[in-house]
């Protein structure tokens, strides 16, 4: 199947509505776009449209959670992690309340709306808050399970979803566990560690590399916090060179999280692929991904260059 992880988000919430009558879904006038509309149709009595007021929405979510509700509060990543950062920190994470932030339209693949809507900083922001768990699923199967796992987990979770449709990489028997990285492909020359939408493109890059005689291992880190240290250490020992790929600023995101593990445990050469500390701009999503070197070719080229320094 091919669908955007925001669609999976709405679909998983609708399924969950049947199991948990204390599940609330909040949105901030973007239900059609975040796909919480799917939940709203299934369970209108537990859907609250808070209007264009993201800070208040997070506060309301916190209040509902103090009474025993499981709450998913949704908006674009920019207005959730960005606009409501401090409410998430002080009203949700500090008291460790059972609030999940469903952040859609993350990254450059937002496309035409341009820089003001392309959130490239959310992982960095959320990663720095104690008690926060961050999950960035790469396909529909993983996203559906991640939403359900977040609902079961007691405490704050930041779920990062995309606007653009992505191909399934995982099979139906895939089992998602918070905090556990997934080895998608073994290899010996380099390890690509990716999260979210670029995971699929990283796998394609590995195939391209194989044609050039380069053996690339590919690891999917869907949970950026708490990060799976074991799989990173093991990969470093096995292949040396590590390349991280993410649809986020290279500062503060997956690349930074991996570099922290590497430098503390097994100092290893690291190359970070992502947005190089600039704002995005308008354009069709696929064109932008290519421009920013997040297509399979772009990833391949960066890896070949990095291998020269190994």
């Amino acid at each position, binding site marked *: 199947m091919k669908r955007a992880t925001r669609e999976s988000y709405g679909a998983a919430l609708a399924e969950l509505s049947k199991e948990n009558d204390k599940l609330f879904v909040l949105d901030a*006038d973007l239900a059609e776009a975040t796909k919480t509309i799917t939940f709203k149709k299934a369970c209108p009595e537990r859907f609250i449209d808070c209007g264009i007021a993201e800070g208040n929405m997070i506060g309301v979510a916190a209040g509902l959670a103090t009474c025993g509700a499981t709450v998913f509060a949704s908006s674009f990543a920019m207005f959730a992690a960005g606009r409501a950062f401090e409410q998430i920190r002080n009203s949700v994470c500090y008291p460790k309340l059972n609030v999940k932030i469903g952040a859609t339209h993350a990254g450059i693949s937002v496309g035409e709306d341009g820089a003001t809507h392309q959130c490239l900083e959310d992982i960095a922001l959320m990663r720095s808050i104690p008690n926060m768990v961050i999950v960035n699923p790469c396909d529909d199967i993983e996203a559906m399970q991640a939403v359900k796992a977040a609902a079961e987990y007691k405490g704050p979770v930041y779920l990062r979803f995309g606007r653009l449709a992505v191909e399934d990489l995982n099979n139906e028997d895939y089992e998602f566990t918070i905090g556990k990285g997934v080895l998608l492909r073994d290899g010996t020359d380099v390890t690509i560690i990716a999260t979210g939408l670029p995971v699929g493109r990283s796998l394609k890059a590995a195939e391209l590399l194989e044609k050039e005689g380069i053996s690339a291992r590919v690891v999917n880190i869907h949970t950026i916090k708490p990060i799976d240290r074991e799989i990173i250490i093991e990969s470093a020992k096995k292949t040396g060179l590590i390349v991280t790929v993410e649809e986020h600023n290279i500062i503060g995101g997956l690349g930074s999280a991996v570099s922290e593990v590497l430098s503390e445990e097994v100092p290893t050469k690291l190359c970070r692929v992502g947005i190089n500390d600039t704002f995005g701009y308008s354009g069709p999503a696929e064109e932008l991904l290519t421009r920013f070197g997040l297509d399979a070719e772009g990833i391949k080229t960066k890896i070949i260059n990095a291998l020269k320094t190994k």
Partner: protein
Amino acid sequence: MNEKELKFLTATADKIRLGIVKSTYAAKSGHPGGSLSITDVLAYLYFYKMNIDPNNASDENRDRFVLSKGHAAPGLYSTLANRGYFDISELEKLRKVDAMLQGHPDMKGTPGVDMSTGSLGQGVSAACGMAYFGKAFNKDYKVYTILGDGECEEGQVWEAAMFAGQKKLSNLRVIVDHNGMQIDGTLAEVNSPEPLDEKFAAFGFNVIKLDDAHDFNKIDAAFTAADEETNRPTAIIMESIKGKGVSFMENQVSWHGKAPNEEQCAIAVKEIEDRLAKEAE
């Protein structure tokens, strides 16, 4: 406003509408509904009211305009292009890679854009800063900003209103585009910020109700009345029609953030061009 001026503004607004329809069609995305509801006021401000000069776009004494509801960028861009800030051909490149015209207004890339906006609630605060500076340095420019009525759900709008009222920013005009709709439905269905007039009054504003945002005589009367207020900021709450001027887009929530397809674009263009031809008679 005399007959000739009225005719000129009516035709200008329709030319701006053409640009909105064609640019969003070319971009295959964008926000026609909320652009069309403010078109007449944009035409009035940029072609009649404001003290501006496209050839001297950063004159420190110019009137300022902040599109707080930044998603209505196609409306602003078409206005600026028609006013001569940049070539009209830029409109066809809207939202494309390397285009000057970004999805939301970008002040560092587009001549005539006084503030970068797109995240709702923030533009009005910047407008307050511009007005405060004008007061501090005895400038006689005015600052105009257009807010969406849905945008008024943002707490920041009321922080700005509190600031403007308390600092007596009489050079500030906060225009609320009261079309009654946002994305998820009507204001009443989502999270109504009403009553807007009483709220702005309570925050220390001179409130003017403009009962038809598509009637130039009434628009002129409202903005002229605003100029008489010397002590308080003015809020102009204007009753508008989302999608105004393209019959199938009028009063439709679904035309908030959707581009016309080829057929719809052709129908809309014909409708507007027919009107322009009639107006020219």
